[in-house]
């Protein structure tokens, strides 16, 4: 049973090391959260990738969508992603407080009350799903609702603290946005949207495990069973390599299946080779500063890799959208 009341009032005291606050004191206005803090709850960097991949789904979907309806869909998907981020920060505030990467987030830093984040996240989640369902179409609304549910309940609350496969299964939540965009624009789920889903799904493990390799101390302190903590760094490197061996040909498949042009074929081959090169570097360099550098390089490049793949898909689809 989740004791929301104790989460609301006790966690900031436990986490931030700030002076004790009684329940009576935790009222509106007590937490000095600024507008920027509420924006931070939405995880803007994650949101930007979600907006981008959803846009690709909207643009590449068959049929025509009115620009205003397309914009509304994108806005709802972005807000839904932000709501997931806020609810994730609400639930994970205790572990965020002990991890160097996340301890300055608004809740562990004591600037926003957990209860306020919960209310903020729930309002945005319900609002974004309703607006998408009512103004765009029901399938898109249902898919967005499932995405938020998957990220918050399946990943954040259930899998994250339970299994080292957390980000593998949880990665599905991050892979849904292009599918939601596709559904918003076409009213259905096409094969290509499933392919876009699979690309992000198989991209997520190498991306996050690269981060986990050089932040494993953080995860260990927080008690999060990330793969390097539970199975060791050698097994993590092996898994990163295996997933990348699936990811690279999968990322090239839109070209081979005739869904994308030559430009995409070249970019996916070149960046795929670079990704594989960095993964092999991570696989070989296992000790000291060189190992950490290789993991950091892989983490950074993985973001660029996904961005470039989707950017080319977007660029290739734009002329078709204008009837060129």
């Amino acid at each position, binding site marked *: 049973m989740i004791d929301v009341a104790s989460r609301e009032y006790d966690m900031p005291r436990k986490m931030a090391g700030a*002076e004790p606050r009684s329940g*009576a*004191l935790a*009222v509106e*206005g*007590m937490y*000095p*959260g*600024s*507008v920027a803090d*509420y924006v931070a709850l939405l995880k803007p960097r994650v949101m930007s990738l979600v907006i981008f991949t959803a846009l690709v789904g909207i643009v590449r979907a068959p049929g025509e969508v*009115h620009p*205003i*309806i397309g914009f*509304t869909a994108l*806005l709802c998907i972005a807000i839904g992603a932000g709501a997931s981020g806020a609810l994730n920060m609400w639930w994970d505030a205790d572990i965020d407080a002990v991890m160097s990467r996340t301890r300055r987030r608004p809740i562990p830093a004591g600037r926003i009350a957990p209860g306020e984040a919960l209310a903020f996240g729930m309002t945005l989640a319900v609002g974004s799903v309703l607006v998408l369902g009512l*103004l765009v179409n029901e399938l898109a609304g249902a898919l967005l609702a499932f995405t938020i549910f998957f990220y918050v309940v399946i990943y954040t609350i259930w899998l994250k603290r339970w299994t080292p496969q957390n980000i593998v299964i949880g990665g599905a939540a991050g892979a849904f946005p292009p599918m939601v965009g596709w559904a918003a624009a076409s009213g259905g789920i096409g094969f290509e949207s499933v392919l876009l889903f699979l690309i992000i799904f198989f991209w997520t493990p190498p991306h996050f495990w690269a981060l986990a390799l050089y932040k494993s101390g953080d995860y260990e302190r927080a008690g999060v069973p990330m793969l390097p903590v539970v199975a060791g760094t050698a097994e993590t490197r092996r898994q990163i390599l295996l997933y990348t061996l699936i990811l690279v040909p999968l990322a090239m498949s839109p070209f081979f299946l005739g869904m994308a042009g030559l430009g995409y074929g070249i970019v996916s081959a070149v960046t795929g080779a670079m990704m594989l090169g960095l993964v092999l570097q991570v696989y070989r360099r296992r000790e000291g500063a060189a190992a950490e550098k290789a993991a950091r390089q892989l983490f950074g490049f993985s973001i660029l890799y996904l961005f470039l793949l989707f950017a080319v898909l977007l660029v290739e689809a734009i002329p078709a959208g204008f009837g060129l």
Partner: protein
Amino acid sequence: MAAVVKAMVDDKDGRKPEIEGVVLTEEQKRRRRQRSIAIALVLAALCLLFYVVTIVKLGPAVLIRPL
């Protein structure tokens, strides 16, 4: 940090019961005002969005009607 103070407030009978209240600092008041403005802007944008989407969904035929 806001302070909890015991304020003396006159009631109807002229007595002065003690009540507890929260006094915000100037910084907290400024941030609350910023949050209020942000909420107002979001609500205004939502109204505009619903209006525009309604017009789009009605389509151009909305202009063809008996006056």
